[in-house]
């Protein structure tokens, strides 16, 4: 029988950080097929990219990230606002800090399959976005803004054999880790990665598809990012965009409170919303004011004002 990365990861985290393992095991138990479909290739990729220390690195990244998220959310419940409002301040404390970014990089990576509401966003992505790309063209190029680990592009390229992706992230630490992952997973010849500010990156435009996952809430003016994404795409091309709502983290500065706010920004930027999914954790404290959740949108670039 072949080595199962998922079982190895679940038993490692159960042993090292039992309070943190429960949520992941619950996600796995409730979504048996879907969880394995995403977790196993992601863990195999991480294992190749990190090497022998992969279990320790992923566990430390995930647990450190979750501690930070839960602390931030508790402070947000108390203060009713995100802690930071200045991008420059966040940038120096996070994206520009290699120590911080190393844990953050793998922490965010693990949440993609470990958090049940993010696993469901993957399902939506697979069915509603990748399905559309496959039907729209047999080959093309994607622009991925705020790529982080590059996971959304990697998942796309693994399914769409003739597509390529251009990855853009502002953090040199993340980009170095992502380049290594892409090398180790055999996707390097279909990926090019740039360290740049996504707000102004347009090299190589027009693109045939766009991705920007969990970047909007990190920016002072998310509308500007969406406008830039729209400018990079050809007419009637699709984009997949996600954002966090009422979910505090150290580097979240734009507080979306309602799904309609993200929709309105996308429409103002020149998109039509083709599909939308708002995904929330199963349980939050009954006393919570805020439901920390994520929205995913499939967008089509409009040609004119109305269509």
């Amino acid at each position, binding site marked *: 029988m072949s080595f199962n990365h998922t079982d190895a990861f679940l038993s490692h985290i159960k042993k090292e950080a039992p309070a943190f*393992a429960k949520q992941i095991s619950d996600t796995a138990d409730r979504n048996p097929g879907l969880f394995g479909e995403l977790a196993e290739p992601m863990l195999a990729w991480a294992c190749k990219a990190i090497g022998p220390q992969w279990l320790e690195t992923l566990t430390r990244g995930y647990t450190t990230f979750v*501690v930070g998220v839960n602390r931030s959310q508790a402070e947000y419940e108390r203060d009713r606002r995100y802690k930071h409002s200045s991008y420059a301040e966040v940038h120096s404390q996070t994206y520009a800090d290699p120590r911080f970014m190393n844990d953050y990089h793998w922490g965010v990576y693990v949440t993609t399959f470990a958090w049940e509401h993010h696993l469901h966003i993957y399902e939506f992505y697979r069915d509603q976005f990748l399905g559309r790309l496959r039907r729209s063209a047999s080959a093309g190029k994607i622009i991925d803004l705020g790529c982080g680990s590059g996971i959304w592009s990697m998942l796309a390229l693994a399914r769409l054999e003739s597509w390529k992706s251009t990855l853009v992230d502002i953090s040199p630490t993340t980009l170095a880790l992502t380049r290594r992952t892409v090398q180790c997973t055999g996707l390097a010849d279909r990926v090019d990665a740039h360290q740049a500010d996504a707000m102004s990156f347009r090299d190589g435009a027009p693109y045939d598809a766009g991705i920007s996952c969990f970047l909007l809430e990190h920016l002072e003016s998310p509308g500007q990012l969406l406008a830039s994404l729209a400018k990079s795409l050809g007419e009637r091309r699709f984009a997949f965009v996600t954002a966090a709502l009422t979910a505090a983290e150290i580097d979240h500065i734009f507080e979306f409170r309602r799904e309609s706010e993200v929709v309105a920004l996308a429409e103002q930027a020149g998109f039509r919303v083709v599909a939308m999914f708002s995904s929330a954790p199963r349980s939050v404290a009954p006393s919570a004011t805020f439901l920390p959740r994520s929205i995913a949108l499939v967008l089509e670039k409009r040609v004119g004002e109305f269509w």
Partner: protein
Amino acid sequence: MKTRVIAVVAKVMDVPLDQLDETSSPDSVENWDSVKHMALIMAMEEEFGIQMTDSQIIKLWNVASICEAVGQSLPQMTD
């Protein structure tokens, strides 16, 4: 201190006091997931006026280990 720690656990996890002891853990308390774990840590920090580090928080795995970490985080008594 153990009694105070257990009282905080009971409140945060919403479990009767008499169902908890030093061995209580995420395995034995159904509500004890990562969100509750952090709520518990923050309640401990408030109760004892301490600040726990990330690496301490991650390793805590039952009531006894929480008592130990709280003890380590309390200001040292001097004579």
